[in-house]
């Protein structure tokens, strides 16, 4: 017999409706939207932790909502990313060209040496480097790698098939192209899903789920993507989000 067995409500992750953060339970095609949990103007969730921005501060929180660390900033539109553990948490503060990252129990900042060649739409960290997806003026996307210790740009790689604004989650890159919602894996294979909105806004719900919101259609979706799954579902859109 198993020494230990536990039954729990399956969790998908967390999604932001306006400034209300709600936990999403259930399974694919069977989402249950929980009550308002947190307030945020931006967020990024992994299975282990989350970064949220709200009211002049960026907080790193555990999945139970307890705060691991907090950083005060006047940045109005921070870009947040967290891939897994607390040490993968990173924020791009475009107003001050600063990367905010977590390591060994505290936040650290690194100012970028120079300027980005465009507008950053996604940021990731492996603890040593930051990876930003940057949309340049012609819509092309560069992957810019920045040394977190020095702030120096180590590389800027053109991603030939990707159009900005793009969003990275794990090894996958998501973007809207002419056919629909494109999902490019780490090998460069692209899968296109039917997607009606031209203006998706991406936020990471958990390590395998991305929340997509269309301001124009006032509609929400949840994308489940991992090495074996790539499916897009409608996410319940509470009236209050419209």
């Amino acid at each position, binding site marked *: 017999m*198993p*020494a230990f067995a536990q039954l729990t*409500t*399956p969790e998908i992750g967390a999604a932001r409706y306006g400034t209300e953060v709600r936990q999403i339970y*259930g399974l694919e095609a069977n*989402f249950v939207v929980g009550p308002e949990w947190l307030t945020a103007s931006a967020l990024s969730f992994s299975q282990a932790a989350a970064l949220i921005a709200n009211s002049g501060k960026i907080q790193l929180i555990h999945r139970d909502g307890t705060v691991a660390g907090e950083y005060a900033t006047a940045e109005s539109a921070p870009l947040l990313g967290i891939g897994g553990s607390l040490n993968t948490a990173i924020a791009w503060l475009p107003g001050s060209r600063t990367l905010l990252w977590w390591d060994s129990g505290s936040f650290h900042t690194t100012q970028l040496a120079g300027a980005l060649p465009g507008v950053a739409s996604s940021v990731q960290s492996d603890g040593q480097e930051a990876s930003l997806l940057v949309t340049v003026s012609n819509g092309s996307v560069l992957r810019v790698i920045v040394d977190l210790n020095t702030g120096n740009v180590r590389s800027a790689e053109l991603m030939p098939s990707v159009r900005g604004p793009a969003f990275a989650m794990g090894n996958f890159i998501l973007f809207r192209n002419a056919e629909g919602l494109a999902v490019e894996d780490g090998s460069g294979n692209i899968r296109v899903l039917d997607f009606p909105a031209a203006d998706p806004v991406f936020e990471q719900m958990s390590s395998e789920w991305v929340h997509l919101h269309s301001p124009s259609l006032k509609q929400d979706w949840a994308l489940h993507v991992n090495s074996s799954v790539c499916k897009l579902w409608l996410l*319940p*859109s509470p*009236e209050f989000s419209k």
Partner: protein
Amino acid sequence: MRHLGLLFTVCLATCGAVYAQGPLTFRIYNTSSCGASNTSTPLPALYLFNTTSLGAESVVEIAPVNTSSSTVKLITAAMSDTQDFSVTNFYVDGLIAPGATGPAFCVHFVPQQTGTLTASMTVNYCVPTASGSCPGTSSLTMTVGTFEGNAAPAQIVLTCAGPPAQCNGNLVQPASTLNFGNVADGSTASVTFTITNNSQSALNPQNLVSLQTAQFNTTPFALDTSKLPASLGPGASATFTVSFSPGQAVLYQATLVVNSSSFPLQGTGTANVLGDLSSLVITYTDATGVRLTAQGGTPINFGQIVAGTSGSAKLTFAVCNPQTTINPVTIPTISISGAAFTLSGLPSLPVTIQPAATQPCVPGIAGSISFQVVFSASAAGTYSGTLTVGSLQFALTGQSVVAPLPAMSFQLSQQPLTSQQQVNLTIQLANPSPIPAVGTLTMTFAPSVQNVKDDPAIKFLATNGRQLNVSVATGSQTATYNGQSLIAFQTGTTAGTITFTLQFTDMPPITQSFTILPEKIQITSASAIASSPNIVITINGFDNTYSAGQMSFIFYDTKGNMITPGAISVNAASQFQQYFFSNNNQAGGAFGLQATFPVYGGDATQVGSVSVTLNNSAGSTSTTQTLQ
């Protein structure tokens, strides 16, 4: 083609052949009536009728004369003004030999309006073949002449005999109110009016006398014109009667219209001072606040409702005993008949009403009682009933009509429904909608699993709720939400029945149910991880029967050999029951299971895979996971 000349003359003596522009001439035989006459005069190009009063008639009799050398066949006659002029006795398809006079016809001038009125008359004719028929389509048209008449207002005067002060032998002047005085309920006062024709021509007085009452209201005034003749010659007189029979103690008004003059009528019903049911004043008020007085002889109309809807029409009745009544009045019973009508809000019966009511009689005043009558009907049609207050009876009527919107139906993108699906619902109209409309779409769920009340995942995705408003545009055959005709919803993870109800105003609700059958446990994701010294198996899925219990685990080594002791059976029914039926269940039949197995006497990394079987009341489900 031969051209035929026609001439119209008025004959005063023997008609002579006078050629003009056609084969016929026309002659006048009679200018006072439509009857045979032997004298005639040629019909002039413009014939003038005598001045004719409204309601009177002038006539001229005319005969055609064939002035040509061929037989002429008359086909039709026409007047350019058919409202004030008409033709009778026209010799349709009549043959007129050369030089002969055809049968006479009459032109009538009956003005419907004052002033100078003119009409031209034409005839269609042909020169027939030997058999008397017209050759082909060779009919011709010629003008008979132009007729003109001056229409004057009717010159009539009125006197009366009866209670009003104006009935004193002098002419009754319009605009002065003719008061029938106080008349006890159940009694009648009558006024006999004498109408005299002072014009120069005869008129029909039956067309000149009418009674007008207030819109929507009933009246105790009655007009009797049975003694009026159809024609009243110049200087002649005739009589008609107006009676007043009040049913309640209130002031009544109406208007007598004679020719174009109005004569206000007034009368006051007075209560039976002894105090009986006839003393009571009964009024009713509809939903818009319009208050009317109930009359025994006029049905109380509840208007229209839409068949099959929850809509109904309610009237609130007030029964008042006026102050002018001396005695209290006792009502022994109040009842209603007619399947579509129901009574509510009745006081305890019998009830005695004190003589204390002031006007107007409305619910709640002293000296009154009130109650409601509701009209509702599931099928279209006209319904009738009777309201009985003591010995007083009032007819009731109401109409139930068919809904204005076309029939609607639900269509699903997937059928039959199963659990854990996102499905699109479409609302289809049988025909393009003739009107724009907004309705409410509601979804309900009835679980078939005992002791389960609901599944929180069953929602419309657009609102995360179970109700939304849909719109139907004029000409559209689908309803939409937020401009979208596809309305997505989730089916949840509980067996049961989803019911959609669509409700539009003035339309029966449309309801359709879809069943989600119980099924085996569905595994949506699984993993097995060797985390020495344990093996951790994680399974996400759902059990829409909430009956999961028996589980089985078989471990294999990296070579595929089953590891002792073989199948490990676990009965987790109590754990699943506690999970599904606790207050913390937020996801219906969805569950996440994590089972941890310690590995004794060996290395967990030597375990290659695990086969898991889960059972519920619908069957078994298995999955095999390679250890990571």
